[in-house]
C-alpha cells in the first residue's frame, strides 16, 4: 500500500488495487459504493486515491443509491464507477437498466463470491455470468468483460472505461474472489502511455442540440449537465429529444439503435486470448481465474503430447461468437470449466449447434478448479 501511486513503476498489487489504478488511469474521477467482501479493497483504496487526483469518493447508504450516484455523476460529465459483489449487484439492477436506456457511460465492477444471497463471502464463484447479461429487466445489450490476472485488472479496467465512453453504455467488469485478492507484481505504465477515450461532446450551439439523435455510429454526442445544453433524461422510452413517446416508429427507432450501436462494433468489443489454438484438437474455453488453471492444464497436456489449446474469453457479453464458432468447427471436443453449474457452457453449446462434443467441468464448493482437474479431463476427452 505504501507505494500505491500511478506512473511507470512495478508494484505488488492485489487485483482490487489494480482495478482502482486502471480506473484512475482511464480518467475515473467519481466513485460511489458500499463496501462488501470481496470487493471492499476497491472502495477502500478509492477513498484515498480519488481525492489525491481531485476526484470524489462517496460511501453511499446502499448499492441502489451507489448506482444512482454514478449515473448522476456521469450525466454531469465525470467518468464514474462503482464496485460490489453479488448481493449488492442484485440491488443495482434497476438503476443499471436506467443507465442502459438513458445511455449513460459508467463502469460497474462485480467481484463474484459464492451465492445466492449472502452465500460464501470469502470464497470464489462464477455464478453471476447470466445475471450480468439479463439481471436488469427488458431487452437490452450490455458489455461485460472478465479479468483473470492482476495485470488484466489494470488494463481491462482501462478498456471498460474506453468502451463505456465510446458507446455510451454501462460496462460491467466481472472479477472473482481469486483475481481480486491475488497479489502479483504488475507494471503500471506512465499515465501518458495509456490510451484513454472520452465521450464525444456536442459541438453545435445548445439550441441545436438533439440529445438522442441517431448518428452513423448510433451513438449521439453527450452533453454534460450544467454546460448550457438543456435536455430531458428519463427511464421511459423516449424520442430523439429525450421526451417519453409511444409512437411505434420512435420506440422501434430507439430500441434498434441501442442494439445497433453495440452489434455493429462487435469486432471492436470482442476480446479473447488464445493459447496453442493453431493445431489444437481439444479446446478449453475458460474465463476469469479458471482461465489460469486452464492455461496450465493446456501446457501440461501439450507436454504429454496431446494437442490441446485454449480460448480465454475476455469479453463475455456480447458473446464472442465470431472467434469461438470457427474454433468449434476445427476441434474434436471442447471442455468448458467454470465455477457454476454451467452458464458460459450454455452459450458455447448454443453457438456450437450440436456440431462438436461440448463437455463441462463444474465446481461449486467455493474453491478454484485446479489444473489437475482440467488436465485429467483433457486426457480422457
Amino acid at each position, binding site marked *: 500500500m*505504501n507505494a500505491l501511486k500511478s506512473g511507470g513503476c512495478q*508494484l*505488488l498489487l492485489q487485483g482490487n488495487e489494480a482495478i482502482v489504478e486502471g480506473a484512475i488511469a482511464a480518467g475515473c474521477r467519481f466513485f460511489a459504493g458500499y463496501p462488501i467482501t470481496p470487493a471492499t479493497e476497491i472502495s477502500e483504496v478509492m477513498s484515498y486515491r480519488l481525492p489525491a487526483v481531485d476526484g470524489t469518493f462517496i460511501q453511499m447508504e446502499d448499492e441502489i443509491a451507489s448506482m444512482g450516484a454514478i449515473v448522476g455523476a456521469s450525466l454531469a460529465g465525470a467518468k464514474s464507477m462503482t464496485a460490489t459483489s453479488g448481493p449488492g449487484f442484485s440491488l443495482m439492477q434497476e438503476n443499471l437498466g436506467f443507465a442502459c436506456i438513458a445511455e449513460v457511460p459508467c463502469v460497474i465492477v462485480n467481484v463474484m463470491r459464492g451465492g445466492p444471497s449472502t452465500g460464501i463471502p*470469502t470464497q470464489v464463484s462464477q455464478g453471476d455470468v447470466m445475471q450480468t447479461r439479463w439481471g436488469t429487466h427488458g431487452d437490452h445489450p450490455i458489455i461485460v468483460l472478465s479479468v483473470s490476472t492482476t495485470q488484466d485488472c489494470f488494463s481491462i479496467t482501462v478498456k471498460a472505461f474506453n468502451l463505456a465512453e465510446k458507446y455510451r453504455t454501462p460496462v460491467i467488469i466481472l472479477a472473482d474472489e*481469486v483475481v481480486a485478492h491475488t*497479489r*502479483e507484481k504488475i507494471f503500471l505504465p506512465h499515465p501518458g502511455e495509456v490510451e484513454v477515450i472520452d465521450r464525444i461532446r456536442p459541438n453545435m450551439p445548445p439550441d441545436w442540440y438533439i440529445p438522442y439523435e441517431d448518428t452513423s455510429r448510433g451513438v449521439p454526442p453527450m452533453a454534460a449537465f450544467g454546460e448550457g445544453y438543456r435536455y430531458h433524461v428519463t427511464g421511459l422510452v423516449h424520442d430523439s429529444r429525450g421526451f417519453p413517446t409511444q409512437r411505434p416508429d420512435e420506440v422501434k427507432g430507439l430500441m434498434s439503435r441501442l442494439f445497433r450501436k453495440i452489434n455493429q462494433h462487435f469486432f471492436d468489443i470482442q476480446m479473447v486470448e488464445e493459447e496453442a489454438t493453431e493445431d489444437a484438437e481439444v479446446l478449453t474455453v475458460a474465463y476469469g481465474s479458471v482461465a489460469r*488453471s486452464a492455461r496450465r492444464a493446456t501446457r*501440461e497436456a501439450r507436454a504429454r503430447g496431446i494437442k490441446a489449446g485454449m480460448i480465454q474469453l475476455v469479453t463475455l457479453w456480447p458473446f464472442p461468437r465470431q472467434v469461438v464458432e470457427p474454433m468449434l468447427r476445427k476441434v474434436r471436443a471442447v471442455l468448458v470449466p467454470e465455477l457454476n453449474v454451467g452458464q458460459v457452457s450454455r452459450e458455447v453449446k448454443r453457438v456450437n449447434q450440436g456440431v462438436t462434443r461440448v463437455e463441462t467441468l463444474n465446481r461449486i464448493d467455493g474453491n478454484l478448479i485446479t*489444473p489437475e482437474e482440467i488436465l485429467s479431463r483433457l486426457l480422457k476427452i
Partner: protein
Amino acid sequence: MDSNRYEIRISGSGGQGIIISGIILAEAAGIYDGKYVCQTQSYGPEARGGSSRAEVVVSDDPIDYPKAMKPDLLLAMNQKACDTYIFDLKPGGILMVNSTLVKQLPTTRAIAIPFTQMARERTGKEMIANIIALGALASLTGVVSLRSLEAAVLSRVPKGTEELNKKALEAGIEAARGITDKSEEIGMEFYENIADE
C-alpha cells in the same frame, strides 16, 4: 515446464501475522529480487483466531495457476496448521514448524524452531514470531535474498519498529544457520528433525 516454480504455504491462526508474512515474502521476491510472484490467501469470516493461510509462488517465468499445488515448503505456526497441511507437502519438500506451538510432529523430517518463544525472550513481543520465521525460511531455502527480505520487511512494518524487526530477522537467520551447521556435523540432511529447545 517452469521447473523453477517454488511454492510456499504459510499457515497458522488469524492474528499471527500469516498474511503479512506472505505479502512481505512476495514483495521481497517480486519487487526486490525481480522474479515473478503470486501471493494468495484464504481465511474465514473471523478477524482473529480462525485459520489463516497465505501462499506465495515464486518463479523465473510468468505464473499461470496462482495457488500452491504441492508446496515445496510448508511453514506451520501452530499445531492445527501442521496437522491440516502436512500431507499436501511435495515429496522431499520442507516442513518448518513453530515448535513453541507445534508439539506433535507427524514426521521425523521437520525443521523445528521455537519462533514464539524466541520472540518472547528476545524482543518481549510474541507477535514478531512471523518475522523470525521469515528470516529462518529465507536463510534455509534461499528463495529470496536476505538483503531483499530485509528491505521488504522494513518497507511494510510500522514506523519505529524497524530495529526490532531487524533484530527478529537476524534471530531467525541465526537459528536456521545453527540447524544447517549442526546437520553437517552429524552428517544429516538439513531438513531432518532437530528440535532445538
